[in-house]
């Protein structure tokens, strides 16, 4: 039975209200979502046998399809075996479409439901708790936000690695929404800027022992001096190899619930952290600038080292704080060359026995 637009709007309003009602008590529950409430909440408890309002979600998805198109979920559940979770997977893969459609349906009333629908409210609570706990040393300095979301237990106010915590369903939703690689970045865009900045700093220190921010002056200097490398066209010979399939089975569907294989996902994440640790972008930018300057000045060193050094001094004095260390390096290297050139402990010429002409 197809619901007309008005009927769909009414249903959307009704489900929004139910979500608002359920949220205070059930906010940490996996199914405390617009679609989960529709299928599983009976007004007082979460009942895992799907019931009530079961037409709402398919109709909403049809509206999403008409409105902005429907994305296929990366992971699917058998429609025959679990029709409710089959629809839930579509909802999780079409969060933006649902939000737009709900806004379209509810108009100004959407604002009341938006923080719940988008997970902003719950995420803000989580991040605020994270910041407070980190600052008060309630959490170890190596605990990053993702681990916090997975293992922090709100009722007990403590982290326990033995059991997934209160925000694990939230982490799951974010992961399914943004993808396992992007969720970690995207979650900072869902909260207020100040909170995001503070949390990001703590999070990055926990992971990398440094922040990943690069001084804008350095970026600018790099752009001016090095610019964007112009790709030289090289034709690669054909690579003779077979392909391998990346990714592991990360989502397991069981008994009306989705379980993410976090262990596997975190393994992949640890690799990402290794990459980020290995490539220190600030250092790479500095190194490129240094290489460029050495390339420019090195040929001049043999001709007139004094002039080169003076010129570098002038540039050093005018440089921004971020650039100064680059000039310090170069000046020190060139000074080192000068020391060696004057050193009496090294040979400055070598004798070569050469056969005399005619011998």
């Amino acid at each position, binding site marked *: 039975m197809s619901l007309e637009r008005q009927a769909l709007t009414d249903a959307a309003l009704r489900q929004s209200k139910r979500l608002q009602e359920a949220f205070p008590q059930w906010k940490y529950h996996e199914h405390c979502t617009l679609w989960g409430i529709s299928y599983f909440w009976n007004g007082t408890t979460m009942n895992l046998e799907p019931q009530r309002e079961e037409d709402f979600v398919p109709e909403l998805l049809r509206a999403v399809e008409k409105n902005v198109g429907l994305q*296929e979920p990366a992971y699917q559940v*058998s*429609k*025959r075996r679990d029709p409710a979770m089959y629809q839930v997977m579509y909802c999780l893969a079409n969060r933006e479409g649902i939000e737009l459609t709900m806004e379209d349906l509810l108009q100004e009333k959407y604002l009341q439901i938006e923080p719940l629908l988008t997970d902003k409210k719950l995420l803000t609570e989580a991040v605020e708790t994270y910041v407070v706990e980190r600052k008060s040393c309630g959490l170890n300095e190596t605990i990053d936000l993702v681990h916090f979301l997975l293992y922090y237990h709100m009722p007990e106010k403590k982290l326990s690695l033995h059991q997934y915590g209160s925000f694990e369903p939230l982490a799951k939703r974010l992961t399914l929404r943004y*993808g396992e*690689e992007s969720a970690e970045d995207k979650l900072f865009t869902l909260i207020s800027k100040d909170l995001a900045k503070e949390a990001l700093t703590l999070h990055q220190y926990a992971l990398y022992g440094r922040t990943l921010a690069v001084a804008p002056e350095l970026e600018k200097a*790099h752009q001016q001096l090095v610019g*964007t490398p*112009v790709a*030289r066209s*090289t034709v*690669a*010979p*054909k*690579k*003779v190899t*077979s*392909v391998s*399939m990346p*990714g*592991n*089975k990360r989502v397991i569907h069981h008994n009306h619930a989705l379980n993410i294989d976090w262990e596997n996902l975190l393994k*992949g*994440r640890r*690799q*990402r952290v*290794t*990459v980020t640790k*290995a*490539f220190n*972008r600030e250092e*790479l*930018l500095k190194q*490129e600038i240094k*290489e460029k300057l*050495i*390339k420019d000045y*090195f040929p001049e060193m043999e001709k007139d080292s004094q002039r080169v050094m003076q010129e570098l001094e002038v540039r050093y004095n005018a440089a921004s704080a971020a650039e100064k260390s680059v000039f*310090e*390096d170069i000046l*020190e*290297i*060139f*000074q*080192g*060359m000068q*020391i*060696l050139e004057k*050193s009496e402990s*090294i*040979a400055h*010429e*070598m*004798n*070569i*026995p*050469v*056969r*005399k002409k005619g*011998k």
Partner: protein
Amino acid sequence: MSSQNVNSLEINSLNDDDDDDSLKIDSSDVDSLEINSLKIDFSVHSLENRITAIVDRLGFFPSQELMHRNTYFAALVREAEARHGNLESCYRSMGGEQFFQQTTAKIPSQRQLLAAATIAVDGARYGRKKIEMSIPGSQKTGGVLLAVDLLSKKYLPQIAPGKRLKTLYVCPSGLVPVMEQEARKFLPKYRGVSITQGMRQEELLRAADPETDIIFLGYELSFRSHTLGIPEEAEKQRTERVLALYAELPTRNAALERLARTVGNERTEKFAAKSPSWNDVIQKVFVEEAKHEANSIITQLEQRVFTPEQPSYVILGEAHNLVDMDSRRAQALVSLWKNARWGDLETGTAFRSSIRHMSFLMHLLGFVEHTEQYSLVVKDDPKRVRSALQLYRIEPVITDVQQIDSQIPLLQEHPSVEYQPSKIITETYVALLNSELFTGAERTYLARILIAHPKNLDPDHFDPQEKEMYRKIHTFFDQFPHLLQGLRQEKSCRAEAAKKIIESALEQQEKVLVFCEHNITEILEKEFAKYGCRRIDQTTSLEMKDGLADRHLALIEAARNPDIRVVVTTRGILREGLDAREFTTIIEYEPTTLEFRREQSIARAYRSGQRRQVQVYQLLASGLGLDERIAAVREWRQHIDHQIYEGDNPSAEEIEAYLRDLGKLQANKLQELLDVQGRGYLATIFNSLVGRGSAGFAEEMKKQNRTRLLPVHFNYRWQYTYSANCARLLCENIIPKLEETQGNLEDILDGACGPATISRTLRKPTTNVDILRLQLEFGEDACQKVGIANGKYVLGSIHNLQSVIPLEATDDEVFDPQHLTESYPRQEKIPDASQDLYVCSLGMYYLNQEERAEFFQEAKRVLRNGKPLLLLIPRSKIATSCEVKFLEDIEASGFTIDRDISGIYAAAQATNVETGEQQGASSFEPYVIVAYNQGTVLPIQKEYSLSLGYDIIPSIPTEEKPLSVADHQKPHVVYSGFYRKAGPQKIQSLSLSSLFEEVNGGKEVDESKGIEGEKSTGEEESTNIEERVRRLAEEKPEAVRDMLSKLSDIFGGNA
């Protein structure tokens, strides 16, 4: 006194070769000698000229002792003594001290100063160790060593006042004297000591002396076999020690117990599992104990010299030799390296043959904490490697010798000098590749031996100790005795091709280096003997004595003996530290996949100071494919190497992406596979499953996300896929034809149905069997959408229709054919004689041989009497040579093939869905078989072979025929206008065609009549043939007689 800005060790060779009269003819008439089959004719080249050439190369008058280490030099000494009384007099007659004039060269170069300062500054400011990776022969060592002075002068007083810097230089043992010499050249005021095998106790004491600055150590002293290149004294010691072990350990068990004390029980047990002889165990004990002792050198250095408080600088020379983190050598060095404040890795070929080989070096540099992280971080992407190296490499990296020596003529490469291999070599090659005796690697190995020199493949040349290979090669030639006979009489085509190059080079007065991969140096020495050939191989020791190894002397002899024009050697022998610039023609007799080896070997001749043009020739056996294949691999590596050394730095965006995207890249790759190469990917997976059987298929499907990804992708725009085109062919063309004779086909079974392909195309319900749940569910959905209800969907395998599982009876995503009873309490059976039609499109060939037999039996069981089985197999999955036998096997199973309908089908039209354009339809060529059930069930055990199972000649990826998965990217195409292109007897007509072609003098046979829709029936074809035979019989009666005789061979008397 002139001053030159050069600082090569090989400065004495800078004499202009035009002045070198060692090759000129001297008319003085004196006796001649014969040394090592080379005649020393003093009437052609005088004694003085010969000695001059040697002295000139060495840069000093060699002692009598040194001269006696080489047979040729010793012969010259004897001649000198005969003529002048003694060698000294001979030298005096050459001018004595007046022979040389002293000139000086300015050192160090600006590049060397820059390298030294960079190492010092980065170590002091950031604790960062460096890598000097300029190409071989670019005088890296000087710069690396000069850092010692800057560190001592400037930085030590700042960080450790009053302390003296200790430097450790580790490199291959053979290079230690060379490096010592470099240190004396650049750092004359610093004291160095080399630790050698024989004098290690005294030298360790000297190393610990506060006055010692630089300690030189060979890698081999911390690892490796001690049996290689051991000097006489050490050899004597070795023999004594081994004899002592025999005495001490009289039984195998006693020897194993002793081994366990050194290497532990686990390793000993592993070793014992190989059933080594008593002798083997004794040798193992000797080697392991020697390693243990060698490790103690490092330990002692750590304890006595490089203590934690001692500021130190460690240089690892030729660092590409450090590959394996677990090697004893590597482990022993790691702690010394890590304790050092300054460090430098020196290698001209860091990349070796794989990006992954750099993992240990990158770990040493501190880029990653563990070696295994390196691959995860750089992911085989040369740009990432470049970025990873950015913080550590010393810039500018010298990538061409011309950057430091502008006068060197450009290297000239001749990448493929083709020659035609003989018939017997080609035959043997094909027989080798087709032989089931060998593994893939063994085939390649033997093929390489064959191509290099046919005589080398003679089973008598194989080592009986290598039991398995020895047995196999004998068995092989027992099967093909005529090939062995042929090979024994065969000349080496490759050697003949090389001779042409050699002759041309000799005409130009060039000396030739021949590099071969395998141990055929001895054979080639004989092959090239007439030109004056010397081999330098593992029989010449690299052990140093008085600063020169016998191998150096052999090379100097070859370079300066005018009677030697050709040197045969291997890339492993003539490598780092050796100078062979007199050889300006290089023949790469055998190709290598290892670019770094190739670079190192060419750098022996193409190096700073070279003034003649160096020519490099690569031989290529035309048509065999192996050389090209090896070259393709090497070129790929060369490309990677080039990207790392000279490629672009990553852009800011790319660096940003590196920071974020390990997973993202995976996601991109996944997306790419799905969006762009999805069908290619599917094809790759499915192709790998042909013949694997239902269990293998199921197992593969369970891996990773395939159970979901494959069906999802398979069904993405399914109507444009190959599967859909095949379904349309069957439903629009074949099944209606069957219904003309069979009446309405009500009960249809679709085996290996995928997404219910027949039901949704035919628009009627069918019984659908598949191994994948999601395929069935997709099919069910698709059928429901078009209003087809009442279809049956069951999990199962087509070889066993007695046990199929209704979807609702299980949660399994993949049918498990191996554990039917345990996995599925509720099973159903497709009833006997219940089906009017059994369709199996794109499925049967995944079964293994046993299952194929079961498949046909099951098909008979479920089909009603006289009803058809309809099979569709892609043309590529049924070899023409197997076609007739396959059909015979089906008929033997109790079916009758419908030869009017069966055959190769094609499409008249192909429409590109994306562009709407018409395109060639030739790639659509499925093979359709219609077989009617004849009722009686026969107990059969046939092969049902669809392919030979192997390739006769490995194909080379070309523009026209690439192998890469990316090339499976084909547009979505809808085929239409299906017609039968050829009947099942096509194999016979093909034979006829080829015979026609043969008798017709190679003229192509006109087959156009067979390609026009339904016109080409079997009847017409045979009429065609009759006419053509008649016509040809009039024109060429002899040829037709011959042809008929051949036909009789094929078809018996009926022909």
